[in-house]
């Protein structure tokens, strides 16, 4: 791991290298629905376990409404999770600062949002955003010269000219603005960056540049990242590991290349098959797709049936190892289908089912999958 002045100054013991930079355990979130006196709720997240190692990039993929952004908002503490814990560098931050995120938390974890046009105040110059981050978190140094040097260094890190510090956001292109947003996150020298669809609003030709920048920050400064996206190809390009979210639960996770080459869960297969790829012939096979869709909607058979080593049942979610353990690839049992009412509008089995079917309320919450051993190799 390369050392740079950015990654060394965080206070809490970087000695414990085996502790994940960010770990989420059994995270759940439900939103109340209906009127004032209604007790109904919709379950947006349920029993999510996810760990991001130091200097690791993990992608979280899934469709709109699958709960990706809710997870990010919970982890960033913009939303209060209903259950579970969030461990940042081994410390349970929900216990440490119970009511709202502390400044210490913010300096460890930063977010980059989807819309670089909305996340920069048009009335201020670029320098202002970075200066403010430095001032609030006390990273600006003692003198104006030090601050200025730091600003120029930040701009250089994200590949922008230092003279852009005096520009207004409207003078910059979308890609440049997103780089400013990344520089702003970097200013506080975080250990973890949550990037929620950072490239989806950018022009195609500059997207790769932003992804390459994120990769470089990881390589050079050892920053861990959670990259939230619906674009599987970019997840494969950037992330070491990929986790697939479906209706508020993780259904499959593994090394990105392995996961996308050998998707085990029907939902992952459905996602992979939907990505246009001219290199792959026959991706528009309607029969195969109908089967997949059916498999996602109502699983009746289990790929692991008859395997004595695998405890399987319809109401006990089980994580199965897929292939070589080195790939850290697991899949949630096919038989178990998340019952959350959230998400997946795209997966309504047939249009006649109607919107009322979407408002299902979770009844059978199986125990979280964390009860089962999960082979985490370093």
């Amino acid at each position: 791991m390369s050392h740079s002045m950015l990654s060394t100054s965080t206070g809490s013991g970087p000695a414990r290298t085996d502790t994940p930079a960010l770990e989420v355990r059994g995270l759940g979130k439900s939103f109340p629905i209906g009127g004032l006196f209604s007790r109904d709720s919709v379950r947006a997240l349920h029993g999510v376990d996810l760990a991001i190692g130091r200097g690791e990039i993990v992608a979280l993929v899934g469709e709109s409404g699958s709960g990706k952004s809710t997870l990010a908002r919970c982890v960033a503490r913009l939303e209060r999770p209903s259950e579970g814990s969030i461990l940042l560098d081994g410390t349970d931050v929900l216990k440490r600062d119970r009511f709202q995120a502390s400044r210490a938390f913010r300096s460890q974890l930063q977010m980059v949002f989807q819309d670089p046009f909305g996340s920069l105040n048009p009335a201020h110059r670029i320098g202002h955003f970075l200066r403010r981050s430095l001032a609030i978190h006390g990273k600006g140094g003692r003198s104006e010269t030090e601050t200025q040097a730091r600003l120029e260094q930040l701009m250089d890190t994200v590949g922008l000219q230092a003279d852009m510090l005096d520009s207004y956001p409207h003078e910059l292109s979308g890609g440049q603005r997103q780089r400013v947003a990344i520089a702003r996150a970097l200013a506080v020298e975080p250990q973890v960056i949550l990037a929620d669809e950072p490239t989806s609003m950018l022009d195609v030709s500059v997207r790769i540049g932003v992804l390459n920048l994120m990769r470089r920050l990881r390589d050079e400064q050892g920053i861990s990242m959670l990259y939230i996206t619906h674009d599987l190809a970019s997840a494969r390009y950037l992330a070491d590991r990929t986790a697939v979210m479906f209706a508020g639960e993780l259904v499959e996770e593994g090394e990105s290349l392995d996961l996308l080459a050998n998707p085990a869960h029907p939902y992952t297969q459905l996602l992979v098959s939907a990505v246009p790829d001219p290199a792959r012939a026959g991706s528009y096979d309607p029969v195969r797709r109908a089967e997949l869709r059916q498999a996602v909607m109502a699983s009746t058979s289990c790929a692991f049936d008859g395997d004595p080593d695998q405890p399987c049942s319809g109401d006990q979610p089980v994580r199965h190892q897929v292939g070589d353990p080195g790939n850290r690839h697991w899949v949630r049992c096919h038989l178990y289908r998340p019952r959350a009412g959230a998400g997946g509008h795209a997966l309504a089995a047939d249009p006649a089912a109607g919107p009322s079917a979407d408002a299902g309320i979770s009844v059978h919450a199986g125990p979280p999958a964390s009860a089962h051993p999960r082979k985490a190799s370093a």
Partner: protein
Amino acid sequence: MTVSQTSFGSHEPVLDVQDLTVKYIGDSRSTTAVDRVSFSIGTGEVFGLAGESGCGKSTIANSIMRLLKDPAKIAAGSISFGGRDVLAMSPEELRRFRWQDVAMVFQSAMNSLNPVLTIGEQIVDIFTTHAGLSRKESLRRAGELLELVRIDPARLKSYPHQLSGGMRQRAVIAMAVALKPSLLILDEPTTALDVVVQQEIMAQIKELQRELGFSVLFITHDMSLMVELSHRMAVMYGGRIVETARAHDVYADPRHPYTQALMGAFPPLTGPRVTLSGLPDGVKFRNIPDLAEVAPGHLVAPFGAGDLSIAHGTQATDDEDAALEGAIR
């Protein structure tokens, strides 16, 4: 798909655009949004127009529909549809031309549905206004139309907010093909949708196209999607077409550096993980010359130093950027 790749139906073009130039005229200066663009679309052919935001794709679509609003002016060129001059049409002719001959699905068209009218009422409107059918007959046809895009006809009574995004988009596509137009213009029809829904919509369009036999002008920035769907395609940059060929030729053998950059912007889903460079920041092409044929049916705008290309699988260094910038002038 591979079958239709070789034969595009008849040679008689449905749409023929020649030297189209569109300018946005300002008080002190004007911008050329579309610069001497020529292309034609055959019967039953899917023609793709790729490029970034601001390259003039949508301006072309709006010119064909004669929807350009004031600062924009068609400065030169011709658009002919089935032998008729679109630019010379009277308002009455235009009214019939739109929707009956050419229909257009706009970007995020699903949000263009009227929220206070049911889906049924909005479809019935098309038939009563454009085809002069009775209300009862219109309602029956509207039901058939929804079935065509696999939406339960009972949904005619639904309001737009009661449908999912994908269903709304399918409803809009159904409305576009209601009067069996011979050309359908799709302007980024799936940008706002998820991959799974996007794939379904595209499959739906392909199926409808096979059934009804209309031609398609397909506008998107997603090269992978375009190559899958289109027969022929053109890549636009700064109002000019820089390359046009059969979609698979562009995919297999992109010649223009911009096309290569655009292709390099989409990481593949298979094969080893290689570093892509996309389009380096600050690279601009200026004064793009007219297209020249480099292979049968494969036309490319000649560029700079000739052998210049952005290599796949290498990180563009600053030196390369500078070389590119210098070579292209």
